[in-house]
């Protein structure tokens, strides 16, 4: 995944982070305090292979992430990872799916332009003839109340993980 550059952002007042991903590589991400609200009635749908590489993204995914379909296919799903999200949330996603179960939760995602959007996400393993061939994730418009409950919780988890604060 490429580092983010100020030229791709929807604003100039950004914060800079270096994220280190599960696979070991790092990426510079730039974030803005701008929320893009979730469109009514739509579902954001994507599918990945068993490693979390995106194999399918629908139109709503393209619109909300700010990336073109061609930019998304073949990339790890962590292209959307926002630095405010605690790593433990994603560990839970992978552990749950590995048990063959459905995962649900609230996720803050990072757009290509540095803005963010909250979703209520749900992911399931794609079982074909008894074999897990990949995963499907569907996101919907979240309840604002639930999102507001997640904000301090995620901040606390994040602070523990990075060793700052608390």
């Amino acid at each position, binding site marked *: 995944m490429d580092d983010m550059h100020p030229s791709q952002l929807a604003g100039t007042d950004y914060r800079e982070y270096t994220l280190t991903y599960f696979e070991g590589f790092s990426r510079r991400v730039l974030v803005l305090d701008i929320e893009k609200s*979730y469109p*009514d*009635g*739509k*579902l954001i*749908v994507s*599918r990945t292979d068993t490693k979390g590489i995106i194999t399918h993204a*629908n139109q*709503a995914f393209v619109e909300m992430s700010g990336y073109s379909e061609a930019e998304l296919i073949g990339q790890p799903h962590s292209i959307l990872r926002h630095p405010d999200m605690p790593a433990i949330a994603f560990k839970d996603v992978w552990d749950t799916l590995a048990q063959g179960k*459905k995962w649900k939760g609230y996720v803050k995602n990072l757009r290509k332009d540095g803005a963010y959007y909250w979703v*209520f996400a*749900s*992911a*399931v393993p*794609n079982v*074909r003839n008894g074999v897990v061939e990949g995963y*499907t*994730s*569907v996101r*919907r*418009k*979240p*309840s*604002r*109340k*639930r999102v507001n409950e997640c904000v301090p919780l995620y901040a606390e988890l994040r602070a523990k993980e990075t060793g700052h604060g608390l």
Partner: protein
Amino acid sequence: MVYNLTVSPDFSPEHIAGWYVFNTWLQRKLGYRIHVDLYDDFETQRQAIADGKIDIVFANPFDAAMLVRDKGFTAVATAEGQRDEVVIAVAADSPVRRVEDLQPGVRIAKTQDPDINLIGMILLEPADLSLENTVAQAASTYVLVAKHLIQGRADIGFFLKEAFYDLSQVIRKNLRVLVTSEIHVVRHALLVGPRFAEHGESLRRLLLGMPGDLPQGPGVLESLGFSGWESLGEEDTQFMIDLMDTLQE
């Protein structure tokens, strides 16, 4: 051998006769005897399926999941261009402008249609509403859902989008759309059970050729309310079922 064909109980009432016309056409084309069994409600139909009585079914996407994953059914085709999208409507003079304006205790007029009710509840999540803090107002048809709204017995109503736009102008003038789903993937599908599986391919070919099957084909399609059939492959079916799965509890 006689096979049995059934149709999801949420089919539009004006097309009941159409399914009998379709079956007559189908029997002539395939050369097998097929009997149409229509059920009034989802429960009775599911029981008939569980008892192994059904070989061909035009299934609601909600039931398609169970039929394919648990009962060994396979998808053959889907109605061309048709998707199961939901309209949530309010009375035209309702003070509610957006989903987030809705409060716990809201009265929802709905039919038994399981996929429409599932998607409808998902569209209410942004307002923190669920089955626990809303009140259902049962209706046997979408026209009655509209009546509940117009006569003030319900605050919002769940409609299959097509059924909403099939309502008469007079009725629709008294309603206002709050939100419409744009899911694009969820749809009814014609499935065949294990006993009919060996004829699945010939059935698919017949259906896809229906618009050109003169003289009867086009008229039969019209009586079903379809413009044609689209082939529904194994992976597309599995994808739809995975998607339905993510939406359920």
